[in-house]
């Protein structure tokens, strides 16, 4: 039954993509305004300061990074930088920049803008950049098209390259220098180098972008403009798509349950590609301060109690894959499946719990836990309900505690007031960007999406540290394979499955999902059939 559902969805997907496949021969048409659904309006829309998908969704069309992810070998495609090279000692990375680029206000883009952004925005203020660029000491600009990032400690060029798509958006120096960058009006009225110019934001209603006729990538972009309609209700997004009022909804904005109905509507397609570069994982987070849970046998028992295939089938309706470890399959550079695995096996789970010294009491319960599913996704909440039942079957009584985002963030990542939680960390193209932080010890409380689990393993810390400094790509990859093995042996948290988002679009929208970060890339090559 489930296979058939998946096949059905795949078929509708294929039939939807078929015209796009044939259309390769057909030249793109210039013109038309693409109308897409948006569900959030970030308070700060500047991607140089705030690296998040909510910001990128709108801002990536206006402000570009040094490089973007691409399908295929190498995995990167130049944007503002044409090439980059690391020094043998790992203390500098030299970027050769485009010289024919102008910002939307007419001023030329140069290495001075990169140097300013790197030191004053990414390193000082950006949510991800602050940790990532902590060793960045200086940026040399010998000429307008060369920028040399200098680090105080060896930094692998592979890591820097992998961070380029998300962490290196460039805004003009002359608008930000000498101002309080966090309150600068251009954090809302964006000025960048991208294929689209920012026109207006009507709060609660829409964002409007228009074609940048002076784009360095001319004749791109094909579209005359993009409108983001703010539609807070997911049911309303589905209706607006059906009514033809919007052309595209990204980031799984349409509820999974509505997909089958929508996919059957002529002229609408469901596309499951274009998010591989921002793969999320559904994980069970574990508080190691709790005596029972600090025992690896108990953690393994919980892993054995989870039927990953069922989770994929019932919660994600087939749109996910069971996870083998903390790195998703898509990242062929680092991924390994030669790690311990925990197949669904309740008997084994119960045996492990008995062995750990937690037999079933008279009431059939071994021990009780508080389970906090993160409220961010429908699927994290549903996983909470599933896990409660799965744990009950092996004699662990879980109490579901459901909070809103602020409450969950504080309970799990600041107060550590949980036993188990359901989380959804995102993998950002390299284990060192936002994944190893879930395993390394010694982080202060309050840091979201980090090891607030009370887990500390010197061996794990040593591997993570060594990998962060390993300059040789092969050595790095080997260390991260070791990291994955250790993560699955020790099981400080339990990866359940990996999932990416879906795009629902009218078939007249062409060149959708052309790179692994498509929804948060610049859409210069996207076009509309007449």
């Amino acid at each position, binding site marked *: 039954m489930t296979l058939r559902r998946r096949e059905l969805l795949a078929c509708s997907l294929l039939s939807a993509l078929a015209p796009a496949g044939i259309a390769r021969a057909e030249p793109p048409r210039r013109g038309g*305004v693409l*109308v897409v659904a948006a569900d*959030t*309006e970030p*308070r*700060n829309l500047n991607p140089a300061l*705030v*690296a*998040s998908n*909510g*910001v990128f969704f709108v801002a990536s069309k206006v402000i570009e990074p040094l490089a973007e992810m691409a399908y295929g070998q190498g995995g990167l495609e130049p944007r503002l930088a044409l090439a980059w090279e690391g020094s043998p000692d790992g203390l500098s990375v030299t970027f050769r920049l485009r010289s024919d680029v102008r910002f939307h206000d007419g001023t030329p883009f140069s290495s001075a803008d990169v140097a300013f952004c790197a030191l004053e925005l990414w390193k000082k*203020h950006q*949510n*991800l950049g*602050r*940790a990532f660029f902590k060793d960045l000491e200086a940026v040399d600009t010998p000429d307008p098209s060369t920028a040399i990032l200098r680090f105080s400690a060896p930094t692998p060029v592979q890591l820097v390259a992998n961070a380029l798509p998300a962490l290196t958006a460039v805004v003009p120096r002359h608008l930000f220098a000498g101002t309080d960058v*966090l309150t600068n009006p251009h954090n*809302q009225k964006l000025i960048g180098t991208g294929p689209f110019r920012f026109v207006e934001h009507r*709060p*609660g*209603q*829409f964002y*409007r972008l228009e074609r940048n006729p002076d784009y360095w990538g001319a004749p791109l972009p094909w579209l005359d403009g993009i*409108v983001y*309609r*703010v*539609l*807070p*209700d997911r*049911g*309303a997004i589905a*209706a*607006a798509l*059906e*009514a*033809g*009022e919007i052309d595209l909804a990204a980031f799984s904005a349409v509820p999974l349950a509505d997909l089958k109905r929508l996919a059957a509507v002529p002229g609408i397609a469901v596309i499951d590609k274009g998010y591989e570069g921002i793969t999320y994982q559904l994980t069970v987070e574990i508080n190691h301060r709790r005596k029972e849970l600090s025992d690896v046998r108990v953690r393994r028992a919980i892993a054995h109690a989870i039927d990953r295939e069922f989770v994929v089938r019932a919660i994600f309706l087939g749109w996910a894959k069971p996870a083998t470890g903390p790195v998703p399959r898509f990242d062929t550079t680092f991924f390994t499946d030669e790690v311990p695995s925990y197949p669904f096996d309740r008997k084994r789970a119960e045996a492990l719990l008995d062995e750990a010294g937690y037999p079933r009491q008279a009431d059939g319960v071994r021990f009780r836990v508080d389970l906090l599913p993160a409220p*961010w996704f429908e699927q994290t909440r549903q996983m909470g309900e599933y896990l409660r039942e799965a744990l009950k079957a092996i004699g662990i009584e879980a109490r579901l505690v459901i*909070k*809103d*985002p*602020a*409450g*969950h*963030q*504080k*309970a799990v990542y*600041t107060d550590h007031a949980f036993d188990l939680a359901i989380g959804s960390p995102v993998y950002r193209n390299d284990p060192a960007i*936002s994944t190893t932080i879930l395993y390394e010890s010694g*982080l*202060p409380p*309050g*840091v*979201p*999406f980090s090891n607030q689990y009370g887990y500390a393993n010197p061996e794990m810390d040593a591997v993570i540290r060594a990998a962060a400094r390993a300059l040789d790509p092969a050595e790095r990859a080997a260390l991260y394979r070791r990291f994955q093995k250790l993560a699955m042996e020790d099981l400080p948290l339990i990866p359940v499955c990996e999932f990416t988002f879906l795009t629902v679009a009218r078939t007249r929208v062409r060149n959708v999902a052309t790179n692994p970060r498509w929804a948060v890339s610049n859409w210069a090559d996207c076009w509309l059939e007449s």
Partner: protein
Amino acid sequence: MSPGLALVRRRLAHAPLVLALVITGCFVLLEAAPGDAVDAYVASLGGDAGFLHELRARWGLDKTPWTRFLLYLAGLATGDLGISLTFNRPVRALLLERLPITLLLAFSAMAVALLVGGILGFLAGSRPGSLRDRLASACVLALNATPSFWLGIVLVLLFAVRLRWLPSAGIETIGADYRGLARLCDLARHMVLPVLTLGLVYAALYARVLRAGMVEAWRSDFVRAARAKGIPRRRLLFAHVARNALVPLVTVVGVHGASMVGGSVVVESLFAVPGLGRLAFEAVIYRDPALLVGVVLVCALLVIILNLAVDLLYGWLDPRIELADSPS
């Protein structure tokens, strides 16, 4: 001084106390909720410890709740409603931006509710127990049992998706840049579905209240006396029965008018109407005290004004109700 004027004066004298309670209540409630604005913000993006620390300092969240409360009051004393942390804009500007559309939605919905509810209630109450009453009451029951989100979705599927007569959401055609009358028509087209959704649910309530009031009036002594006096049925119905039944209706309308302004979160979300209800909802989710207090203050003011209007209406509808002595 006329009793009406005295009432207005007394009510206005009480207003500051009500508003002070409202402000304190909002602050305390939001303070008691776990997590602060920074927690809510970073939950969608992540960041290191320094990032969080800097944000807290910048947003003034490193100060004690008492200090923040006093600072807010000090600002309020000078007419400053503070800055919304969620939107990074002055609360005053946000409220002024959203108030007109909210009032338009609420008052249009109230008009629809009164019209539909009034007709149904009057039809039912003019001849209690008749076939007409049964039919109208069945309609009312069906409407009453319909949740607004469901009604909204059904209306959207019918009128926006299937028939394509009306837009499914929003308040204007983006990029059309209509002017003058064309703009008004565009706005009206967008408001039809949200107004109907919000209005019809209240219509059921109003119809029931009006019918109940009329049924009671028919049984009362003064109607029997009027009938015995030979007053024509038509005049009896309008001047005595219906008019008396308006008193409870006005009460209910007064109570719900305010909740229409502040409580239409569902309708505002479904139809992407940028109104006050969503603003209040977001203020709670994002732990934005200045914004929450701002929205609730506006709603509280509206409640005070509406209640006053209702009390004044009582006196006009039923002179037996003494304004000056009515407890407030």
